[in-house]
C-alpha cells in the first residue's frame, strides 16, 4: 500500500531537499535560542543564522520552474 509522496520532477525534489535542510538549521536556531539566557552574546549571531535560513526558505518558490501552487 506504499504510495509515492515524493515530489515528481528532479527540480521539485531538489527544492524539497533544500527545504528539509534549511528546516533543520532554522529548528536548531530555535532550540538554541530557547536554551541561551537573555543577554547572551551568541543570541544575536543565532538570530542572524535563522533569519538567513528563513530568507532562503522564502526564496524557494521563486526559483525558476518551481510550481507556485505547492507552497502554503
Amino acid at each position, binding site marked *: *500500500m*506504499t*504510495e*509515492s*509522496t*515524493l*515530489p515528481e520532477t528532479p527540480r521539485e525534489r531538489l527544492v*524539497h531537499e533544500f*527545504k*528539509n*535542510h*534549511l*528546516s*533543520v538549521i*532554522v*529548528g*536548531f536556531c*530555535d*532550540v538554541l535560542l*530557547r*536554551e541561551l539566557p537573555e543577554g547572551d552574546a551568541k543570541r544575536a549571531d543565532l538570530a542572524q543564522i535563522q533569519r538567513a*535560513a*528563513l530568507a532562503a*526558505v522564502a526564496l524557494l518558490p521563486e526559483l525558476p520552474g518551481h510550481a507556485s*501552487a*505547492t*507552497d*502554503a
Partner: protein
Amino acid sequence: MPEERPRLLVIDDEPGMLAVVERFAAAEDFEVVTRTGGHALLTELPALKPDVALVDRNMPEVGGLDVLRLIREIDPDCLVILMTAYATVDSAIEAVKLGALDYLSKPLDFGRLRELLDTVRFRRDRRRRLLVADSELASRFEFCGMIGRSPVMQELFDLVRRLAPHARTALITGETGTGKELVARALHTLGPRRDRKFVAFNCAAVVETLFESELFGHTRGAFTGAVEAKAGLFEVADGGTIFLDEVGELPAPVQAKLLRVIEYGEVQRVGAAAGRTVDVRTIAATNRQLFDEVVAGRFRQDLYYRLNVVEINLPSLHERPEDIPCLTAAFVGEFAGRFGKALAGVSPGAERLLHNAPWPGNVRELRNVIERACMLSEGRILSERDVLSVLGAGAPRPARPRAPALPTPGDTPAEPAHNRRTVEQVLQQVGGNRSAAARLLGISRRALYRRLDSFGLR
C-alpha cells in the same frame, strides 16, 4: 512511583529533523523515540505505545499518510501530527480526514508544536484523572466485595442489608457470573451468624451418589468405603450458614431430605437410625429458572416455595452497563497490584470495547478479561488492542438465549456506518475473527454479517 513522561515518536527520513525535534521535545519534558522510516512500525508500535507521533509526509518507501493510517489502525489512542515541506490545502484536509491531529509545514513552527504537545499532555493527564475518579467511585460503591453504582445494584445492596439480620432461607437467582455467592456471603457477614461458619457447596460439582453423605454425613460402614463416620456439611455449618450453589442440580431424594432440614432442622447421616438437630441458615442459588424446573417436575414444589420465601434476583451485567467503568477500574487496580505492573486504567477505545461487549459471563467474565489483558499488557494503560486480543480469545460461552434478548448498544438504528475498507481492515487485523471484529466496530455480529453480505465479502 515517579510520573512517567509522555512519549513522542518522530518519523522522518532526514536525520537532522529527528535531531532537532528530539532536542526540542526533550526540553518540553517528553520522552522521544525517533525512526527514519515507517517500515518496522507494524511490529514496533504495540511495544512503543507512543502518546503522540510526529510523522513526515514525504518519505521514500512508506509515505506519511500510510504511516498515519497504520497508527490509527494499530493504536487508535496515539495522536498523530503530520509535517511536510509541501503543504497544500488538499493534503492538509486529507490528513485531518484520516484522523491527524494537525498538519505542520516545514520549517516547523515550534510555538505551534509546543501547543500541540501541551494538548497531548493535557489529554493524557485528564484521562488519568478520570481513571483515578473511576477507581475512587468503585471503592465508594463497594459493598461486601460487590461494586455497583447503578440504581439496580444500589437497591440490591439495600435489600441485602435489610434481609441479612432476619432471613433464615433465601433463594438467589441470576445468570452465571453475576455474583450469587458474594450475595450469600454478604447475607452471612451482615447477619447475626457472622462469627460462625459459612459453608459453600456447589451442587453441580458432586457425583450424584455422594450428595447425601456430603450434605448429611454417614455412619461408619454405611456403605463400601465408609470406613469412618463423617459429619455432613449441615453439621459442619451448625450455627452458621450453608450456601447451596446450583441448587437446581440436586437429585429428587436429596431434595426431600433438604426440605426436612430446612423445615425441622433435622439431619440424618446415611446409615444412622436417628436424626440430629442442627441450626443452619440455608441460602440456595440457581442460574436456572427454578420455577420452570418445578413445572417440569424436576424440582420439588414444596422445597421451591420453602426456599423462595426470600428471593434475590441479580441483574446481568448487560442490564447495568453504567457499572462497567468502575468495575473495570477496580479489576485493573487489583491485577496491576497482583502482577506488579504500573497500570493506571484503560484507554477510551478499550473502554468503548468493554462497554459494547455482550458479557454473557457477566462480571466474572469481565474480571477474567481484565485479568488476562493486565497479564499481557506492556504499557501504562490497557489499550484497545490489549483488550481486543483477550476478548477475541474469549472464554467458552455459556448457553444463553441468543441475539434478540441481547441487542448490543451498537445494534440500534444509529449503528455506525463502516465502509467496506474499514470492515476489511478490521477483519484482517483480528485474523478473520468475526465476533472480535464486530466488537471492534461497535456493531453486533449479525450487523457485521449483514454488512459482509452487502459488500459481497461472505
